[in-house]
């Protein structure tokens, strides 16, 4: 029974939609009926995986019209006004979801009480999502795109020059109004068609864009990717050491402290916005520039993409700063994406090596400011006509700077890279092919390790609290330059350290370890 429902829904969702439509019921509740019906049909993981994917490898063109697809996407633009649609067609037939009258019939009048609203948003595939993560979440996927897809709205994807899918999404169920926010990751399941873009402005020839009529949607649930890690504490410690060694050897010239900082920065996330407990930003300074030109991406970029589900490399250069936009901007009522319109949990690797002497025009300054704002306050201003609004972000930052400090940014943590003598500068920029990969199983363990650490919560025990408080008072008496800010940072580091050890509590021991790590870092700075 269930399976036949499933097959029906997979083959012809439109027919199912018509079939479950009951004109005698209130039209207002039909959308939520649809939503619950289809989510029920695809409740099980297996059933859900049956739904064909819409992604870069399976672009809209590869699907037949009005096919059922699922689209794991980042909400990019929620500014379009809701659209009105006729919810009841002639003959008491189901309207909406792109269903229109099939027959041309004259002289029939419609009741405009049947007009309903649907929310229109623009969604793109998740920017910065690494391939291994896509495959893991979507189930199996083919590696080769069936057709090359030419997105019509390139400006609505945060990362230019990266293949992507952009879809106009129409949501009919309003049981949770305003529930979609920019940069939310949502899996939409719906009927794919092609429709003119819903725009406020009058085009003489409106653009046709892929449009997804949503039957139901699933918000991204934070889950440990790759399942729960099964290991006892000693294994964890070993795994952690292995991970740090691998990061250090393959991407940081053997600097294990640097690798540990990268590890901590990668598992940080916004703990609380009010009071603000934000992820610390990390600058790795004295990071040499590559000798070749154009500058290749650092090996760290590749390493991070292998370890983290979401990572983006932002190679700063004057042309990039002066010409691109980091913050989203609404132009002609169309929200253009900016580099920083990224989903929560994404780690941004900013390289300063491409920056040469030159003039930074106002746009460049604004871009830098936007980047700094996100780093220090985790909020990104979106620019609208006559106003700008800040939207919350949850991004981690690792900055690679050539000098003794970052040229542009104030970071919470600055670590000076201590390259081992045996490693050359070029080693930091070795091509992906030369990076020695750990066994697939170990790599999978690394990923689980990081994902679990990021997910976990950590407490501070009474004893440790007492200890930390007194420790601070002692230090203040020895050295008046120690400030409350230092304590705040150190608390953050201690928490992250505990997370990275998969501990549930910050102990005195961890506190001392965190202090020691921080002390080593500071010693190198001076």
């Amino acid at each position, binding site marked *: 029974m269930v399976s036949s429902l499933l097959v029906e829904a997979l083959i012809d969702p439109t027919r199912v939609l018509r079939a479950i439509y009951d004109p005698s019921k209130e039209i207002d509740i039909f959308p939520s009926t649809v939503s619950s019906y289809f989510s029920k049909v695809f409740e099980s993981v297996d059933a859900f995986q049956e739904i064909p994917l819409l992604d870069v490898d399976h672009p809209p063109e590869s699907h037949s019209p009005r096919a059922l697809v699922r689209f794991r996407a980042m909400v990019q633009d*929620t500014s379009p006004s809701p659209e009105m*649609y006729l919810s009841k067609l002639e003959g008491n037939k189901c309207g909406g979801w792109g269903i229109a009258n099939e027959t041309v019939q004259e002289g029939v*009048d419609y*009741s405009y009480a049947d007009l309903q*609203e649907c929310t229109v948003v623009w969604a793109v595939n998740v920017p910065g999502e690494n391939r291994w993560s896509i495959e893991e979440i979507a189930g199996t996927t083919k590696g080769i795109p069936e057709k090359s897809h030419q997105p019509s709205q390139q400006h609505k994807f945060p990362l230019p020059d990266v293949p992507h899918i952009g879809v106009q999404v129409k949501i009919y169920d309003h049981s949770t109004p305003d529930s979609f926010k920019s940069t939310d990751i949502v899996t939409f399941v719906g009927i794919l068609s092609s429709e003119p873009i819903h725009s406020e402005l009058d085009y003489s020839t409106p653009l046709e864009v892929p449009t997804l009529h949503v039957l139901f949607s699933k918000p991204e649930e934070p889950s440990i990717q790759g399942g729960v890690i099964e290991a006892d504490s000693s294994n964890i410690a070993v795994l952690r050491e292995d991970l740090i060694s691998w990061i250090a050897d393959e991407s940081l010239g053997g600097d294990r402290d640097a690798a540990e900082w990268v590890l901590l920065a990668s598992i940080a996330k916004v703990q609380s916005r009010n009071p603000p407990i934000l992820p610390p930003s990390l600058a790795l300074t004295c990071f040499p520039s590559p000798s070749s030109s154009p500058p290749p991406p650092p090996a760290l970029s590749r390493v991070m993409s292998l370890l983290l589900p979401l990572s983006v490399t932002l190679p700063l250069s004057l042309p990039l700063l002066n010409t691109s936009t980091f913050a989203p901007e609404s132009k002609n009522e169309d929200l253009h994406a900016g580099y920083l319109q990224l989903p929560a949990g994404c780690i941004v690797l900013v390289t300063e090596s491409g920056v040469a002497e030159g003039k930074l025009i106002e746009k460049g300054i604004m871009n830098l400011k936007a980047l700094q704002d996100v780093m220090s306050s985790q909020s990104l201003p979106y620019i609208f006509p006559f106003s*700008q609004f800040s939207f919350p972000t949850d991004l981690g930052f690792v900055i690679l700077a050539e000098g003794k400090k970052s040229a542009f940014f104030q970071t919470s943590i600055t670590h000076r890279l201590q390259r081992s003598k045996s490693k050359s500068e070029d080693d930091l920029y070795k091509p992906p092919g030369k990076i020695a990969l750990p066994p697939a199983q170990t790599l999978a363990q690394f990923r689980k390790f990081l994902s679990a650490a990021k997910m976990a919560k950590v407490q501070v025990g009474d004893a440790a609290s007492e200890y930390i408080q007194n420790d*601070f008072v002692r230090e203040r008496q020895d050295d008046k330059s120690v400030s409350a800010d230092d304590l705040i940072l150190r608390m953050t580091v201690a928490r992250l350290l505990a997370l990275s050890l998969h501990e549930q509590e910050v102990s005195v021991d961890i506190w001392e370890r965190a202090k020691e790590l921080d002390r080593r870092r500071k010693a190198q700075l001076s």
Partner: protein
Amino acid sequence: MDIDGLSSPPAPLSSLPPSSAPFPSTNERGSPRSNPRSSPVARRQPADALAFGDDEAEEEQEGDESAVRRRRRARGQVNGDVPLVKDAVGESVAESFETFLKGFTEEVALAPTPASDGDLPEVADGELVYIEQIHTMREYELTTLYVDYGHLLQKDDVLADAIQKQYYRFLPYLRRALLNLVTEFEPDYLKINPTAATTDSANLQSREFNIAFYHLPLVSGIRDLRTDKIGTLMSISGTVTRTSEVRPELLFGSFICEVCGGLVNEIEQQFKYTEPSLCPNPTCGNRTAWQLQIDTSKFTDWQKVRIQENPSEIPTGSMPRSLDVILRSELVERAKAGDKCVFTGTFIVVPDVSQLGLPGGNKAELMREANGSNAGTGGVGGSGVTGLKSLGVRDLQYKTAFLACMVHDSDGRGGTNIRGEEEEGEDDGQAFVRSLTEPEFDELKSMLDSDHIYSRLVESIAPTVYGHEIVKKGLLLQLMGGVHKETKEGMHLRGDINICIVGDPSTSKSQFLKYICSFLPRAVYTSGKASSAAGLTAAVVKDEETGDFTIEAGALMLADNGICAIDEFDKMDISDQVAIHEAMEQQTISIAKAGIHATLNARTSILAAANPIGGRYDRKKTLRANVAMSAPIMSRFDLFFVVLDECDPKTDLNIAKHIVNVHRFQDEAINPEFSTEALQRYIRYARTFNPKLTPEAADVLVEKYRILRQDDATGAGRNSYRITVRQLESMIRLSEAIARANCTSEITPAFVREAYTLLRQSIIHVEQDDIDFDEEELEGEREGDRGRRTAGDDVEESQDVEMSAAEMEAMDQVEESSMGIDGLAHPNGTAIQSGSPSSRAGSAVPGSTAAGSPAPVPVPAPPKRRMVITHDKYLTLQSLVVLHLSATERETGKGIDRDELIDWYLELKESEIQDVDELEYEKELITKMLRKLVKDNYLIEVRGDVQESLPPSTEENSAQSSGVQDGENIRVYYMVHPSVDTEGSSSVP
């Protein structure tokens, strides 16, 4: 036949302009307007998307011309058996409205009219307001009658309700009523005759009259516009983001038949160019060949503006919505880009036909049909939405727009408009309360009903920051804001409160700024180092479309009616400081860039943080010398707070505890009494109050200002800057904000006193010395020291200067309030004073020989602690004692026994006293305090069981060692010294 109707002289009554032509080239939609020939019944063709949902809708589905055509065809078909019914309700609405217009007189004083309506006539009491307006309309050649919806409500709420609920339906009737009145009172004004000689009387063009409603009780946001609002009369507010040029819109076309040459007049136009469907000449039969006669056709002005949601109306995390507003006739060019406006009118839905005729699947049929209708081939269903709709093989989309009958600047609602302020404030408050859910409302109510709300609010501000109550108090008042005012000359007086926090690096300055930004989602955080004047204020950019320069808002303007937090203010370019200087006082920004000069609104409060010159705050110098800021800019800040990095184990421990707890428990750690959301709601509600000074408060204000001025004149206060009328304004603003915090519309003397205290602490008091009791004691014996001047003394000031104000406040409100906030936690007021503290304290009131000095301070230093407290602390305690005594005296007519008084004090302090040492210390402190108060003529000491006044004798007093023992044999009573003005200031004996 319908066609005959087309050439007959139009019934003048129903000549509504096309109700919408926002998309002239592409849109077709049914018109809601009545057809002149076919009785108004036909107005509500469903195709206009104006579903009224009532029974009559069924009968009134016939629209204008297209409907006419269809009806012709349809009769006998689908709708054939539906008889045409007159909209009897509409008729009666017209009648009632006419009666209302004819009979309405202003019964009370004239209600304020929207500021932007220069053309609203002045009327005097008892006049027939609207009849008078009709005369004026003729005089000034206006065609719009402005109707105050409030008048309607007041006179005929049934009518008001009908108009509100079914505005679009009744609009033609309302206009007919107006036309009747014009016919009656100004019959000559009905017709215009541009080319009189050539036209016969039948072709005299009639004037189009419009009705503009204003002052609707509720203003909605763009987001509130839902399908159920379609066709109702409502007001929406938004910021205009772009405006189209003004275009002529064809209302009624005159056509010449190219076949027979016959003239067809008054072809009503709707949303697209509409030609007659059939030549009226029975022998002609032409359907297609028409020529428009421009000179006899009727046009009106038309403009489309795009509005965007106001920042305050956008739910957090959402993006602003936009909407098209259609303005007609005299309303065009009323709204300019960047203006925040309120539009009154109705929400309409227009089928979006632009998507038809696209390349793509299923298009062949579409194209054919679409072409057919456009070419006007006269085929059935060739026009009108029904026809189009039936073409659709795809889902037809609909566009929404707002058809406005009235537009005015909405600044008035923000509190700028003083004339309508009280009324509107009340409305806003009510409207806000209505928007709350029940638990939210209950919470707000319990907050309103509770005691000491002000000090408790302060405690909930910036809970992550430890201590610094006075800064928090300042922030609360900044969030509340003063009342914006506008003088009769149109000069705006800011209500915003600007605050500057000066302090050592890595103290909590930035945290305050960040708190405000997280608290107010629309606040702007910027660093003086990173911002250029352009970024901070406004930028001039080239409009890509037109090539013209336009003005784009920068951060300051973005925070319009918000707060702009500027970190590292001192690092800001002087030129930029000057630029925001204007914003701070004038609330506008002038920019002169790229050859254009413009003045923009920038009503924003500034919260600045600045580092002292040289990195650390130098207590030996004045505030002015510590901050790299010019005097004019300094004087624009209402309040200055100095935050110092004190090195003290106890403070450090408290800070550490606080930080660790925040990391441990997040929200629960700081556990403020009120959640951020509750606070936000309270503040939004409080801001709807527009407090006014009571006469008594005004007197106090004058007196306080006099004191400040006098102080300034003698130079004794060593002010950071000259006391000018700016500080008077500051004091008013602060008083208003305090009254708002208490959710009252009356500023009482207590509020003024609190404002004065804050101001004094902020501008002068920063440099007050601490009071050293031990020194004082000595000094008491060396009477000669008393008069010494203070100039050149070390400036001692501490961050707990601030603490005491909260106590003041608490006392002001309830005299025996508990001392919730106290300086105890800040024991860094222990500095030893070498100067002559009493005279320093006295310097606040020059001329008075004795002013404050001793006061108890809980100094947690071990054995022999010095009795030193800050001057503020002293003042606090002093007023505490004086007020307590005077209250008791009023009740009993007697003084208070010393031991009782001490017990009372210790009880107050009970919660803060942690051990016996502290208790002893407090005891000693209060004893010394009392003694000093006596010495300074604040109190009189009365000895013996009989309350017999003895001359207060300081010598005697100080001769006795420490207070506790004196009372052994003789009872000592204290009373307030007759010279102390308990109503006025606690610092003036």
